[in-house]
């Protein structure tokens, strides 16, 4: 293809990604977004202006070399695109699917002003998926250093840290409390958004190519304490995430039919509850479901509930029911990824904005039968600059509901802190760690990801895992530091 002029590039419209049609996908758990074809990816890549000072890169928490990988892609050099990507990001197939690109790289794209940012995330996914199929570059462990590192938790933070350390030649063992590794990627984010096969492939490569050992069913804090690990390993990285759910302090939260999004999604994803009774773990959704909150977790819960309703309806012939998202702020403040909001809307999730629950109503059997809410309006901007919602007096009303799912944010998983003397925590329960290095106040212990930041994003967890790996490597390689520590 001849080199296009910038004017010609700007004339190409942003390409949508093919997707399963809404009326079909609500009856299955298969992936919704199907990915670019080669032609679409090439054409989308042609849209990049290759800015001399690319601002998109500043928007990426791990600094992916965006113009370079896009350039390689459009030249047809896929192996080069993969290599460029891997310099900064080991998990492009995952990040391409779950990163909030519209507030990160794509927000900074010069074409974004017209709503026509280069679809960097979709291209990233294309490169990642290519590599999963073609294996152009196999990760290799470095020459053995004789040092051993224990990584606690196998989510994006732990996995990234482990992979980087193994590439540098350190022996890495990952301890995971669940029976399957992957963290939120495996237990939280549903199949229709992030197929499990992708995570399995990434984990397999870590194990077979890099010799990383993964010990599942190990609950650190109980099975071993951090101090016990320190006796055996030269360094410890904590990537234990933030999964402890919170419930609103309103009447009725212990009624049957009220659950956390984590419980609901764990039943559906990790335990494959949508295939009960073939799989043993049941999951129940009522005819009328309210999901409280509007982040990614809420979207995932709402869309999973909707699918279960439609699958049931296909069996019993009854109407599927309704799924509501109840959110106290307005559309403008919705924290979920744009694509998830859009998909949820397309699928028929009903959004009750500026609405806050004040009580869950129960019947005589102790089951949920309704939700009492109050209407809200946006008041003055608060310290964070967001306009805070205030209740409108006298606007209370009730909705019939039989399932209420809380998706309100989470705090760090508690068990790892058992007997962890010297590990300082904030009043939110997160670990105090240097944001640049991941060092905690306990010698020999690093931390990163949601356990430090509170619930955040996959890419920020990966970035933290990477920075910690670099610092752990510095520590393990520096005889002076190492022997003191």
């Amino acid at each position, binding site marked *: 293809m001849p080199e296009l002029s910038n004017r010609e590039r700007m004339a190409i419209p942003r390409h949508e990604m093919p997707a399963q049609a809404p009326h079909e996908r609500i009856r299955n758990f298969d992936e919704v977004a199907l990915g670019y074809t080669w032609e679409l990816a090439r054409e989308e890549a042609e849209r990049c202006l290759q800015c001399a000072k690319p601002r998109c890169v500043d928007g990426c928490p791990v600094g992916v070399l965006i113009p370079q990988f896009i350039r390689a892609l459009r030249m047809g050099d896929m192996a080069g695109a993969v290599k460029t990507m891997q310099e900064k990001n080991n998990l492009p197939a995952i990040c391409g699917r779950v990163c909030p690109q519209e507030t990160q790289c794509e927000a900074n794209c010069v074409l974004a002003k017209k709503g026509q940012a280069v679809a960097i995330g979709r291209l990233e996914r294309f490169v990642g998926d290519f590599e999963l199929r073609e294996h152009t570059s196999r990760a290799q462990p470095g020459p053995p250093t004789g040092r051993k590192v224990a990584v606690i938790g196998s989510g994006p933070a732990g996995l990234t840290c482990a992979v980087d350390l193994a590439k540098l030649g350190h022996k890495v063992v990952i301890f995971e409390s669940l029976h399957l590794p992957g963290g939120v990627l495996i237990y939280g984010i549903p199949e229709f958004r992030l197929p499990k096969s992708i995570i399995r492939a990434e984990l397999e490569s870590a194990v077979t190519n890099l010799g990383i050992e993964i010990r599942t069913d190990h609950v650190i804090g109980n099975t071993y304490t951090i101090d016990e690990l320190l006796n055996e390993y030269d360094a410890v990285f904590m990537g234990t995430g933030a999964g402890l759910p919170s419930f609103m302090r309103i009447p009725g939260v212990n009624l*049957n039919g009220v659950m956390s999004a984590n*419980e609901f999604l764990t039943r559906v994803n990790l*335990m494959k509850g949508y295939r009960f009774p073939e799989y043993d773990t049941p999951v129940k959704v009522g005819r009328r479901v309210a999901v409280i909150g509007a982040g990614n977790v809420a979207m995932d819960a709402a869309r999973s509930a909707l699918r279960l309703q439609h699958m049931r309806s296909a069996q019993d012939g009854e109407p599927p029911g309704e799924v509501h998202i109840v959110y106290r702020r307005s559309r403008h403040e919705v924290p979920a990824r744009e694509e998830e909001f859009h998909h949820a809307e397309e699928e028929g999730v009903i959004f009750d904005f500026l609405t806050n629950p004040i009580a869950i109503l129960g019947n005589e059997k102790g089951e949920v039968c309704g939700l009492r809410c109050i209407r809200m309006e946006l008041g003055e901007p608060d310290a964070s600059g967001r306009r805070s919602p205030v209740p409108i007096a006298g606007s209370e009303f009730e909705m019939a509901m039989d399932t209420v799912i809380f998706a309100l944010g989470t705090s760090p998983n508690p068990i790892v802190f058992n007997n962890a003397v010297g590990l300082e925590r904030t009043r939110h329960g997160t670990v105090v760690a240097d944001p640049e290095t991941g060092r905690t106040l306990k010698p020999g212990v690093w931390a990163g990801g949601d356990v430090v930041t509170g619930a955040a994003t996959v890419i920020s967890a990966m970035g933290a895992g990477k920075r910690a790996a670099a610092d752990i490597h510095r520590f393990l390689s520096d005889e002076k530091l190492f022997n003191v520590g």
Partner: protein
Amino acid sequence: MYTILEKQRLSDAIVLMVVQAPHVARNARAGQFVIVIADEQGERIPLTIADHDRQAGTITLVIQEIGKSTKQMGQMAAGDAFHSVAGPLGHPTEIAAYGTVACVAGGVGIAPMYPIARALKEAGNHVISIIGARNQSLLFWEDRMRSVSDELIVCTDDGSYGRKGVVTVPLKELLETRADEIKKVWAIGPTIMMKFVSLTTKPFGVETIVSLNTIMIDGTGMCGGCRVPMIDGARFVCVDGPEFDGHLVDWDGLLSRMQFYRNEEQLAVQRWERLRETPTHECHLDKVVPLRR
């Protein structure tokens, strides 16, 4: 591999298994539990650690076959292996020298009570144990309990063995005659039994510890599915428990929560039994509607 090294039938619907799980055995203490998955399709089932052997790297589980998963586990034999065993989980029992204590156990609860009674005895307490079951055939470990108790009362609901009646009857007599002497009571058994033990001890003001066995998923504090309503708000049984002050538990709220998946549990049992009888028969129970309440 979490291989079953030994299997023993304790009663009609209760089996004991010694399982290879060195990572659990190394730190296990009385009162803690594990989460076990039978096979790849399995659910995560909490089971109390009834005993452990650090040297051999084994734990002992006592399983009552009630639901699909526990019935399936009951069919597994020595040499078979569980898909997953994670733990130890929960806080261990607080063992101290209290003086005279009562250990009240019903049915399968006798198994987890045994290591607690043993530890209490070793700590120098005068241990009075009351064990009970619906009938004689469901009773086990009388000898073991006797070996760690200073006094032992055995009862059956139908009077087929020991005293006739439920465990709260001798407990109440004990409190009426020796309330000042008894410093603390432990109760493990069916939820309804623990409720009535707590109600029995309450008027006497004797602290009562119960070990709750709610529905769990992860068992590590990540889902809240195990939460128990208490007088002062909910707690997560897997990380805050499993032992709680029985006088603070909202028993009716808890009993109601434990019923939530009853229909699904029945469906799973029926399907499993059907599949076991005729393994080649195509099971249409899959097609019935599992998700509706």
